[in-house]
């Protein structure tokens, strides 16, 4: 196996990966991005409504501390306050950098960046009414951001391994991460990509569910690799169901629609969010809105012949507003819902959208585990940022517009920290031949297997289990059934068979490897969801309906080696502001 060496290797070419890569490439260190798709095909491209940040354009008095308050509250108090403080305070600098790079933000009459209201936003620590804090490029903010980052990586001559797939982590005798095994999809060549710093920016895993806003490629590759390497996973029970996925298709309709004045209606045409969240109404936290929608449907007020969805009303905003502020939504709605939002409401249903959990990290992107005494310990050589990381700024529920900010701020922070570490000198022992071969075992087993089940039906089965047993509302008994089904599925997924043995652009091989990553992510989700016997944020238990701060005001940690769940403390000590104390969360 050939070895290629770099100072820093970033796995994933979405927003987080390309922001980290840009930072490192600018510093002159030998940097490579491994991306299984051409970078602008990454899922960041699908982000619509915007990037939330207190840049004080819509409101000159705006304050990052208000944004911090909203984010802590949105997280249902298990977001780490030092990390949220860092994100919200560094945010404006990171946004202005993007603008200077050329990101085509929409503009105000004053020529500043346009900001729109999003869910869970307030002024003056919840006391000053709705804020407008989400910076937008029409409703194509993710596209604009991703392309801008790619363009600036071209400018800075980052090395891209496009359409290469990272298979597994290589660890040395000390347990430090020293690179990955990767396949060139076009030729089938497998190489050892050696690196002093390996950054996972592999995104989410929404494809563990049957109905998701996520791209086909969101298969939890970083989670799979991490869990197989014994890295713990944090808060994996926390999955965001976005209130407005297009009914039937799953494609996303931005929260920005409600920010611009749209609202949800049931079959009677009632604006039902007024009952569930009298103040914020349709701009309550996403978890709150999604649950309210499901309750409307369960109580018989859903729309359509099966009463299984609700509708998003936009027509009252007028054609001009819709075509200028929400042009992409008009396009998607016409294509996938066969509905023109200028005239009719869009059928929508809560749809799996975002993984709040992930690889635990500190604010520098360093991956963490726990030592024998239960203290945090850095995993040498491994970093994570973006959706695959759990730093944790989103806790039990992410606010809309905070994912793009998360990936830019922590992609940048990882790059900055690695640059500093490289300058100070990173000494990791080389992997032995045995270490490298160990990382190649899964791939070899797949290549050599003669029989087994096909990937598509196995994937479908996995997705149905997760959809049915671990959805918006959860109960212990039903989750335990789901866990038993997953246990049965594991061996079959491990023995998935190749439908194609070619070395040229073999997507069957990639799908098999992805399926195994999906499975690891799903199993972690299932086991931790069953363990957290309370309701918090996106995790809503029918058998434990209340938040239980006495026992669960903490992160969950999943340990793949023994499938056990432990608890990890939440950070309540920001550096420059007072702690935001947990209180009842209402909108």
């Amino acid at each position: 196996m050939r070895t290629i060496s770099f100072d820093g290797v970033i796995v994933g070419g979405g927003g987080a990966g390309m922001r980290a890569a840009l930072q490192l490439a600018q510093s002159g260190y030998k940097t490579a991005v491994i991306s299984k798709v051409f970078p602008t095909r990454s899922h960041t491209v699908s982000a619509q409504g915007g990037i939330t940040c207190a840049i004080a354009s819509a409101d000159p008095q705006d304050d990052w501390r208000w944004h911090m308050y909203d984010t802590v509250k949105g997280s249902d108090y298990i977001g780490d306050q030092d990390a949220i403080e860092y994100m919200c305070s560094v945010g404006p600098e990171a946004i202005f950098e993007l603008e200077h790079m050329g990101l085509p933000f929409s503009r105000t009459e004053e020529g500043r960046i346009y900001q729109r209201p999003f869910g869970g936003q307030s002024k003056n620590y919840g006391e000053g009414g709705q804020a407008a804090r989400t910076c937008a490029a029409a409703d194509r903010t993710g596209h604009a951001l991703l392309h801008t980052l790619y363009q600036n990586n071209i400018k800075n001559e980052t090395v891209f391994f496009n359409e290469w797939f990272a298979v597994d982590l290589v660890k040395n005798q000390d347990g430090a991460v020293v690179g990955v095994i990767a396949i060139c999809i076009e030729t089938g060549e497998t190489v050892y990509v050696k690196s002093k710093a390996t950054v996972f920016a592999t995104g989410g895993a929404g494809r563990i569910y049957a109905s998701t806003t996520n791209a086909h490629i969101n298969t939890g590759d970083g989670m799979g690799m991490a869990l197989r390497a014994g890295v713990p996973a944090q808060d994996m029970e926390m999955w965001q169901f976005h209130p407005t996925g297009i009914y039937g298709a799953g494609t996303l309709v931005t929260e920005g629609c409600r920010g611009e004045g749209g609202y949800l209606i049931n079959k009677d045409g009632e604006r039902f969010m007024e009952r569930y969240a009298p103040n914020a109404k349709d701009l309550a936290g996403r978890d709150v809105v999604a649950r309210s929608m499901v309750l409307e449907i369960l109580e018989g007020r859903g729309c359509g012949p099966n009463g299984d969805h609700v509708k998003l009303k936009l027509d009252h905003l007028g054609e001009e507003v819709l075509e200028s502020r929400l042009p992409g939504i008009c396009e998607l709605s016409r294509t996938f819902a066969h509905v023109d939002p200028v005239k009719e409401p869009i059928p929508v249903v809560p749809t799996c959208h975002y993984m709040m959990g992930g690889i635990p990290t500190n604010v520098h992107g360093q991956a963490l585990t726990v030592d024998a005494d239960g203290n945090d310990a850095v995993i040498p050589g491994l970093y994570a940022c973006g959706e695959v990381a759990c730093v944790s700024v989103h806790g039990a529920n992410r606010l809309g517009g905070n994912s793009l900010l998360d990936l830019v701020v922590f992609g940048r922070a990882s790059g900055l920290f690695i640059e500093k570490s490289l300058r100070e000198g990173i000494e990791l022992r080389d992997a032995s031949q045995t270490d490298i071969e160990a990382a190649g075992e899964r791939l070899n087993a797949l290549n050599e297997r003669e029989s087994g089940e096909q990937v598509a039906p196995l994937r479908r089965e996995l997705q149905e289990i997760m959809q049915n047993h671990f959805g918006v509302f959860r109960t212990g008994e039903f989750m335990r059934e789901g866990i038993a089904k997953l246990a049965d599925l594991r061996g079959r997924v491990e023995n998935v068979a190749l439908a194609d043995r070619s070395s040229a652009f073999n997507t069957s091989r990639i799908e098999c490897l992805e399926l195994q990553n999906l499975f690891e992510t799903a199993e972690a989700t299932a086991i931790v969801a069953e363990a957290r016997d309370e309701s918090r944020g996106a995790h809503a238990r029918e058998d434990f309906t209340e938040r239980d701060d006495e026992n669960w005001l903490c992160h969950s940690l999943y340990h793949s080696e023994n499938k056990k769940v432990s608890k990890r403390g939440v950070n309540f000590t920001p550096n420059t502001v007072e702690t935001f104390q947990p209180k009842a969360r209402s909108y």
Partner: protein
Amino acid sequence: MLQVSLYRYNPETDDAPFMQDFSVETDGKDLMVLDVLELIKAEHDGSVTYRRSCREGVCGSDGLNMNGKNGLACITPLSETVKGDKLVIRPLPGLPVIRDLVVDMSLFYAQYEKVQPYLQNPTPAPAIERLQTPEERAQLDGLYECILCACCSTSCPSFWWNPDRFVGPAGLLQAYRFLADSRDTATEDRLSKLDDPFSVFRCHGIQNCVNVCPKGLNPTKAIGHIRTMLLNRAT
């Protein structure tokens, strides 16, 4: 039953490409072409090879030639492309085929990189954003939305002939996106790099690019603007 005729080529086993037929049960649904490909791969032949990612028309992975017209498989419903019950799917024309429906896009990306598709402005940036009026920003509408799917450039006869020297509609659309940006100061440098007989002037206004763009963009119009800027500069 939908009759799908699929372009197949595996460089390891096939001397030449061939068309393979599949009968696909659509249950009368107006599926997207990508759904049909997913059905074929899942239920008929797992070795069928194509690219896909977002499945909602924003990532640009699945540009294909469907019944003779370039477009994105994920947002092309059967009702729009199928005549009778026949669907012929080929890779985007004019680029080397790697396997089945997957083409080598290196030449396409090289032309994109050639236009220096990033903002250039050496003046020190302010502490906040550079200001831009809504009118100035509106100049970028219809330009920045490009998803690099290559449907346009691979439908352009001029690009087929000179893919190494004619920048092509996608690249030129991005060239104009930066020429039109009030924040960019490299206009003269950008124009001088395009000022040769091939880069821009091989566009003959055929407008295939406009007809196929899945995002409804108009590269021909952008090329017209560049042409005017080049001619004004010459006089």
